[in-house]
């Protein structure tokens, strides 16, 4: 088979590109969690922020990826960091929204019980709301990660590397094997990420 012989001849390159791809996804999703979860929590405390913040995160989601990279070049140059910035912007919406929805969905009676026990707002968040919302938040992270694996292929358009390199090369030279060489491992990565986070989500549900 064509693809197999291509892989056997280019195994080092394939590994390198896969690693770059994973790096783009992990760093960007990690940063999106660090920014998105606190933002989602803040929205439950400041309802007035909800519409503008979710609206803005929504807008990023609608910008085509090649156009977004184009807009970012003047600020971040070319290479991995521009791609990571774009991936963060795409990952924010599902994380912020699920964090907000998860916490807002906690039974008011449970929250009242916590208050009745003399919990401060911080304790209520840490001991009651976050544990109960964890499943929903993780579902948001899961969506963000899977989407990032797909979108990260476009990083190859600005020299960020990743499996998109094979796809872009294949498109430029009308070579189906080369396109598959990038698309297949990217799809496998997405499935793997989904499966791993799905297991984590089930564990979480089971513990409760």
């Amino acid at each position, binding site marked *: 088979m064509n693809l197999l012989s291509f892989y056997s001849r280019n195994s080092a390159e394939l590994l390198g590109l896969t690693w770059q791809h994973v790096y783009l996804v992990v760093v960007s999703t990690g940063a999106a969690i660090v920014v998105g979860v606190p933002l989602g929590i803040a929205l439950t405390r400041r309802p007035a922020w909800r519409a503008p913040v979710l609206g803005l995160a929504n807008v990023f989601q609608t910008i085509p990826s090649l156009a977004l990279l184009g807009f970012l070049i003047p600020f971040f140059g070319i290479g991995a960091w521009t791609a990571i910035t774009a991936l963060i912007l795409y990952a924010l919406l599902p994380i912020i929204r699920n964090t907000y929805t998860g916490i807002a969905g906690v039974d008011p009676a449970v929250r009242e019980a916590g208050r009745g026990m003399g919990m401060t707002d911080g304790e209520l968040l840490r001991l009651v709301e976050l544990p109960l919302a964890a499943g929903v938040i993780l579902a948001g992270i899961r969506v963000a990660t899977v989407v990032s694996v797909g979108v990260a292929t476009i990083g190859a358009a600005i020299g960020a590397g990743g499996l998109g390199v094979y796809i872009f090369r294949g498109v*430029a030279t009308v070579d189906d094997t080369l396109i598959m060489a990038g698309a297949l491992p990217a799809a496998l990565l997405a499935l793997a990420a989904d499966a791993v986070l799905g297991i984590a989500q089930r564990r979480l549900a089971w513990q409760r």
Partner: protein
Amino acid sequence: MAAIGGRVLLTLALLLGACGRHDRIVVGAKNFTESDLLAEIVAQQIERRLHVPVERRLHLGGTFVCHQAILAGQIDLYVEYSGTAFTAVLKHPPVVERDSVFHQVASEYSRQFGLRWLTAFGFDNTFAILVRAADAERYGLKAISDLSRVAPRWHAGFGYEFLERADGFAGLSRVYGLHFAAPPTAMDLGLTYRALADRKVDVIAGNSTDGQIAALHLVALEDDRHYFPPYEAAPVVRAGTLERYAGLARALEELGGKISDDEMRRLNAAADVEHRDIRTIAHEWLEAHVP
């Protein structure tokens, strides 16, 4: 994908074309601005000289679709590039003898396909090594061979096609002895223009007749060692159509040699940068240059 799309388009074209046509000429074009513009110029020239109805089938799927369509008689003519015909259609290895390409292509097309190449428009849409105009002035860069002086301090960004093709970067760096500060960044072709204008890279490889070159204050360095193959654009017409319409060849020959590289760049910019209608652009150009 492209091949399947091509076949679908072709089937459609066959179905639509089956309704018999004797009193009109069908002009095709590939799926990019320059091809559409040239087809429109050709179409209007035929209309004003021959007073025959011209049907436009613009923005077809690419070289493959246009070639299949003209062979099948679904279009009578379209504008092709000598280098593309040489490598993509006739499957010859990348050229060595620049000057013989056009003649060789013309004679093989005539023999194999019954298609005639008319006189070329005069411009050459090949790869162009582009730098910012300000840099060209500061470092006195006129030709690609001047680039080797500054290359060790510069960064290059190239499209995937240029990095992959036999007549792309590998040969270029060998012929001109170019060694950049780092391996060239592989990027989307459209975004290389942006990266160059925003000073994120210093050299890119674009298309020599691209309208963006002037708009973004870039200059194309001269290929002084004649590395890039010629891509001269000319109308390719079915021999039968030329016989049926006596004045057709003469009308199209009037366009020969009339469009320089600069002129083609200006026309492309009118469409791509100023977003003007190609019918108007073609009409004005014909009025001014082919009275």
